[in-house]
């Protein structure tokens, strides 16, 4: 095992929106409160396989609550696999399995006695391509998780709240009964975010949520991530390094199934500890 895998760096997330040009945040500006909070998600020695292929090798990292962590790395590096382990969607693929410790609020998620179905209500997911239910209206798409899970409450109110949270309300409030397919791709993706939020998850996983969208729709999704950060813990996989720099507090760099480095985003992009991270973020490969 490599040395860097064993050192897990926990660094409090910055509340500031970061950009590549932004100055490194002074330690005093960091919010010590969240640093003292127990981590939302703690991953220890996570291994994942597809059949005989060893796709993730002993990943260790910690995600503080109400922060955004971006996972970057070249195609096939294991970042999506990592994300899909967190809500146990990985094991749905025939032959796929995961081992290790995955603590959500201190509770192990990979235990045999943990029901993946109830886990997925706590860890929501947004996919690469917008995937609204084609036979349902806009309203019913948002309420789908509530209805299918038999969750009561005022659905109309939840639909409005989550559509507002996902910055879609003003665009669709007059046509909630229209088919979800009448929306544009970017709107559909925000609808899918609203749908994921409606079941009130604690963690939101986003698997390249903007890669199928145009720049304007992408900007809206990124703004949305900033908004959602105040309430949710977000992990986002992205191919776009600028995007990772813009939206995340911490960045994890994966390469060939290894977690090479994880740390505050500005450090990863300006002063990484690992040569391979530097080569990747400066565009020497990948």
């Amino acid at each position, binding site marked *: 095992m490599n040395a860097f895998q064993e050192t897990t760096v926990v660094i409090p997330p910055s509340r500031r929106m970061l950009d590549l040009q932004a100055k490194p945040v002074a330690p005093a500006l960091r919010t010590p409160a969240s640093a003292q909070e127990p981590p939302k998600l703690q991953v220890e020695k996570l291994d994942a396989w597809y059949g005989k292929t060893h796709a993730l090798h002993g990943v260790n990292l910690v995600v503080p609550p109400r922060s955004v962590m971006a996972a970057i790395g070249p195609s096939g590096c294991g970042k999506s696999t990592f994300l899909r382990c967190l809500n146990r*969607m990985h094991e749905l693929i025939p032959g796929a399995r995961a081992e290790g410790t995955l603590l959500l609020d201190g509770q192990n998620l990979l235990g045999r006695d943990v029901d993946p179905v109830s886990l*997925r*209500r706590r860890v929501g997911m947004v996919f690469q*391509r917008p995937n609204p*239910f*084609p036979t349902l209206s806009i309203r019913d798409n948002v309420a789908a998780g509530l209805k*299918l899970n038999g969750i009561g409450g005022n659905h109309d109110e939840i639909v409005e709240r989550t559509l507002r949270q996902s910055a879609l309300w003003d665009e669709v409030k007059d046509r909630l009964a229209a088919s979800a397919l009448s929306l544009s791709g970017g709107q559909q993706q925000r609808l899918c975010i609203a749908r994921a939020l409606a079941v009130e998850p604690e963690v939101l996983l986003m698997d390249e949520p903007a890669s199928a969208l145009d720049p304007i729709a992408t900007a809206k999704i990124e703004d949305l991530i900033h908004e959602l950060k105040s309430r949710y813990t977000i992990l986002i996989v992205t191919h776009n390094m600028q995007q990772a720099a813009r939206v995340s507090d911490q960045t994890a760099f994966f390469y060939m199934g290894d977690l090479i480095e994880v740390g505050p985003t500005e450090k990863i992009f300006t002063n990484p500890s690992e040569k391979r991270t530097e080569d990747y973020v400066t565009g020497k490969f990948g």
Partner: protein
Amino acid sequence: MNRLRWRKGVNAFWTMMSGAAVLAAVLPLASLLWLVISHGAPGLTPGFFTSLPTPVGEPGGGVGNAIVGTFFMVGIASLLALPVGIGAGIFLAEKGDGKLGSVVRFTSEVLSGVPSIVIGIVAYGLVVARMKHFSALAGGVALALLMVPSLARSTEEFIRLVPSALREASLALGVPAWKTSLRVILRTAMGGIVTAVLLAVARAAGETAPLLFTALNNQYWNTDPLQPTASLTVQIYNYAISPYEDWHQKAWTAALVLLLLVGLLNFAARFLSRNRLQGAPR
């Protein structure tokens, strides 16, 4: 220039050939329609749909009881075949990758290749021989045996057409797998499955052989599943093999009614299948 002219000539030749092939394919259908309509239409009166058959030579009379009987037996068959066929289709699509799946798939393929007269004999043995009399139930069982394999296969096909992204979306919301299958996947595939059901019903409605020695026939109204029952197809058969000109005429008209019925079902299936899965995510 010469080559261009040559290629244009070749193109024109093959365009004509394929046009001729289309004509050859459409001509039998057109002539069949023309024959049935021209022979059948004169006898098509409102009374034909509502009255009982009359003896030879007596004017009037119709196939009202046979129309009702066909609907009745297709209804019984659907009641038996839909749960089994659609259920098997769901199984094949969701869990059909293992050994059991391939056995079920092979069995349904063999079953769909069994001649309908053999299906009739099976239903005779299963129902008629045991109950000691012909019945609508026996006819329904025979038609159901015909419907199950095609229903299972087309249900499987339509479920497999549903993008896996929708299954993932539902599972990621914390919806259990069984609920995802029934309320997300099946619902999305429903348009296609309804089409498959209509086509299976249309096919069953047009079958004669399985009914000949199961439901037999009946000159009167019958809605008792345990009694022999008339059907359009058997009625057409009986009229057509009779020596009477009067009954031949009725056979043509009954054939036209059957054709309209089956055509309507096919048309409805077409119409429904047009917007199934329209615009679903890739």
